[in-house]
């Protein structure tokens, strides 16, 4: 199997973390890289969006978000019903798995680009739309039967959080300026993108290595869940893409979005809205297992499945 070169950087970070190397990327660099990546992904999507009629996306967007809401509900039933997790933990983990990972999406896009498989830039719109709903579902599940939801704080945390502000802001700037307007910025935002992604993934490898200890406490069920859930969600993404008549490239991206688990927006939102949930469980599963799984095996798997199923579904 040939890996995306950027994934090898992730593995280097993971290895350095496991070996307890003194390699450390300062928190401010992590922040700066994530700001760059979010803005660049938004801009790229916005530039592509300028070539399409935005209103045509409204129908598919409704379906994509509607189906995505099933993911946290299903995760919650499995974790609560099957494995007997406490309500707050099951809801928080479900919210992480229903929400999306921007970097996993970026790696899937670059996986497709290096295989010359076309995908539409407007998939970034779905990326921005899919972050919030699962978090709301998670909080609702955690709080059902008891009042006391700081909805206002939660909505502010997510909607004014940096990932939505930068993704949506980038989309808007790219859409308003169009390809010609953004062209002078190409060198910074598009040519440097993969290098920055490689840096960021190396850092994520280091951070993920730090979560491995949490998994020992989490137990084998959660580890199995962290691999099984993305595969099922990825399959749901491919089927949904097929029903919507998406291209194979778009199907791979939708599968990746459904399969990915959030580890930036969700931990912050859950910490505030469902504080009694243990963050070591949700972050350990999403960052310690699902994120590496998706990078290394998941994306190639969704790619393979999307090609296999494309002729059958469309």
């Amino acid at each position, binding site marked *: 199997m040939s890996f995306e070169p950027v994934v090898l950087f992730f593995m280097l970070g993971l290895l350095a973390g496991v070996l307890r190397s003194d390699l450390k990327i300062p928190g401010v660099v*992590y922040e700066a890289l994530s700001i760059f990546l979010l803005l660049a992904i938004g801009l790229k999507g916005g530039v592509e969006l300028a070539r399409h009629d935005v209103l045509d996306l409204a129908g598919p967007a409704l379906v994509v978000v509607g189906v995505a809401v099933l993911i946290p509900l299903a995760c919650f039933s499995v974790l609560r019903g099957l494995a007997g997790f406490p309500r707050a933990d099951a809801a928080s983990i479900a919210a992480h798995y229903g929400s999306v990972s921007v970097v996993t999406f970026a790696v899937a896009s670059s996986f497709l680009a290096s295989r010359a498989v076309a995908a539409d830039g407007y998939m970034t719109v779905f990326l921005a739309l899919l972050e919030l709903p699962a978090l709301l579902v998670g909080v609702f599940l955690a709080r059902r039967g008891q009042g006391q939801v700081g909805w206002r704080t939660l909505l502010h945390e997510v909607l004014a959080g940096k990932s939505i502000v930068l993704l949506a802001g980038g989309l808007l700037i790219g859409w308003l300026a169009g390809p010609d307007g953004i062209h002078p910025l190409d060198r910074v935002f598009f040519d440097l993108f993969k290098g920055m992604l490689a840096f960021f993934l190396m850092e994520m490898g280091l951070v993920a290595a730090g979560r491995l200890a949490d998994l020992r406490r989490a137990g084998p069920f959660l580890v199995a869940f962290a691999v099984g859930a993305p595969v099922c969600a990825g399959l749901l993404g491919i089927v949904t893409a097929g029903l919507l008549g998406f291209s194979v490239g778009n199907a791979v991206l939708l599968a990746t979005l459904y399969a990915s688990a959030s580890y930036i927006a969700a931990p912050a939102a859950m*910490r505030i809205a469902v*504080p009694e949930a243990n963050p070591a469980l949700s972050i350990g599963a999403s960052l310690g297992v699902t994120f590496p799984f998706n990078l290394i095996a998941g994306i190639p798997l969704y790619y393979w499945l999307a090609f296999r199923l494309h002729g059958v579904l469309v």
Partner: protein
Amino acid sequence: MSPALTCRKLVTIICEAELETLLLPELARQGAHGYTLTEARGQGARGVRDGAWRASSNIRIEVLCGVGVAERLVEMLQTRFYADYGVVVFVVDVEVLRPGKF
């Protein structure tokens, strides 16, 4: 001791960085006139907090205030945040200039 110095309390709160948005409005509500916030790293009951990313970052908030405000801050932290969050708070006596500021 210089006669210009007056006794006040220094309340130091070390907690997870995620608490910042919830905690800062509370400080003002309990009567604190200001605060100093710094990024922090360390180790405790919740493992190593290395500051590599937001979910493993800590902050240290320092508040200079009178006895009443210090007591209210400690009580607020205990009732609202101690159960679910990583929080350490301690209070020491300090001497300050310009006591009206605190």
